[in-house]
C-alpha cells in the first residue's frame, strides 16, 4: 500500500482514497502496460504513423519491452521454477509469454537491422536484407496476435485494478 493510509471521508467519496489504496507498483504496472499496448498498436499501424514515427516508436518500444521484462523478472523466475510441477499454474500464460518474447525480440531486432530513418539519423547504416525484412513482417504479425492474448489472459487483474484506480464500483444487488 502506497501513500498515506489515512483518507478522509471526502477523499473516499471522490475516489481519491480508493486510488491511494492501490500500491505504487501495481499503478506503475497498469499505466506502463497500457502505454506499451498503445505504443505497440501505433507502431504496428505502419501506414498510419509513417516510417519515421514507426521506427522511433519501435526503438522506444524496445527499451520499454526490456523494462517490462525487468519489472516482471520475479514472475519469470518463479514460474520457470514451478513449470514442471504436476499442478503448476500459469502454464498457458508462460507459453504465450515465451512466444511473445521470441516474436517481439525478433521483430525489434530485425526492425533495427532494416532501419532506414532512425539509425541513419544516428549515423548508423544497417545492412538490412530480405531475410530481416521478411522476419520483421512475419514476427510483427505474430506479435499482433500474441499481444492481445497476453493482455486478455490477465483480464481479471486489469478489471480489478482499473476498478480501483478509476473508482468504478461493481453493481450491487439490492434485497
Amino acid at each position, binding site marked *: 500500500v502506497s501513500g498515506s493510509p489515512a483518507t478522509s471521508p471526502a477523499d473516499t467519496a471522490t475516489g481519491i482514497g480508493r486510488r491511494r489504496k492501490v500500491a505504487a507498483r501495481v499503478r506503475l504496472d497498469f499505466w506502463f502496460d497500457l502505454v506499451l*499496448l498503445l505504443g505497440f*498498436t*501505433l507502431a*504496428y*499501424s*505502419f*501506414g*498510419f*504513423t*509513417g*516510417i*519515421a*514515427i514507426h521506427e522511433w516508436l519501435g526503438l522506444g518500444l524496445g527499451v520499454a519491452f*526490456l*523494462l517490462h*521484462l*525487468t*519489472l516482471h*523478472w*520475479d514472475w519469470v523466475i518463479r514460474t520457470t521454477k514451478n513449470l514442471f510441477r504436476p499442478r503448476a499454474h500459469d502454464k498457458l500464460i508462460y507459453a504465450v509469454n515465451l512466444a511473445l*518474447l*521470441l516474436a517481439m*525480440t*525478433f521483430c525489434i*531486432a*530485425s526492425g533495427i537491422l532494416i532501419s*532506414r*530513418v532512425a539509425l*541513419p539519423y544516428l549515423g548508423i547504416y544497417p545492412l538490412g*536484407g*530480405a*531475410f*530481416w*525484412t*521478411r*522476419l520483421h*513482417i*512475419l514476427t510483427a504479425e505474430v506479435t*499482433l*496476435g500474441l*499481444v*492481445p*492474448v497476453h*493482455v*486478455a*489472459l490477465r*483480464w481479471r487483474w486489469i478489471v480489478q485494478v482499473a476498478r480501483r484506480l478509476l473508482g468504478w464500483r461493481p453493481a450491487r444487488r439490492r434485497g
Partner: protein
Amino acid sequence: MRFLRHLAAAALVVAAVVLLGLAWAHFGASTLVSGVGHQVQQELAAGGTHGPGIYGFGHAELGLGSMLDPANLPVLRHTVVIEIAVIAGVVILDVMRLWARRADRRDWLAQSQYRSEDDADE
C-alpha cells in the same frame, strides 16, 4: 541494485534471442526468404497507396504527416479491431471456463451433500 540485476538478466535473455536470430540468418536464411524477399522489398518500396517513402528507395518523404491524413485512419482501425477481437475471444473463453468450473464444483458439492445425507439415513 536488485533492479539492475534483473535488468542485466533480462538483457541477457534478449541478447540470447538476438543471437538465435543472427544464427538463423547465417545458417538458415533460405527457410524464410526463398523467393519472397524480392517481392517484400518491392512492397516496402512501393509503400502502399498512402504509405511513406523510405530511405534508400529514391525519395526522402518521412511520412510525418501520415497521422494527420484521415485516409490513413483505417490502418489504425484495422489494428485496433484485430486486438479487440482477440481480447474479446480470449475473455469469452476464460469466462466460459470459469462458469464450467463453477458448475462442476456445484455438482460435486451437491453430490457430496446427497451422499452424506444418504449415509446419515443409513
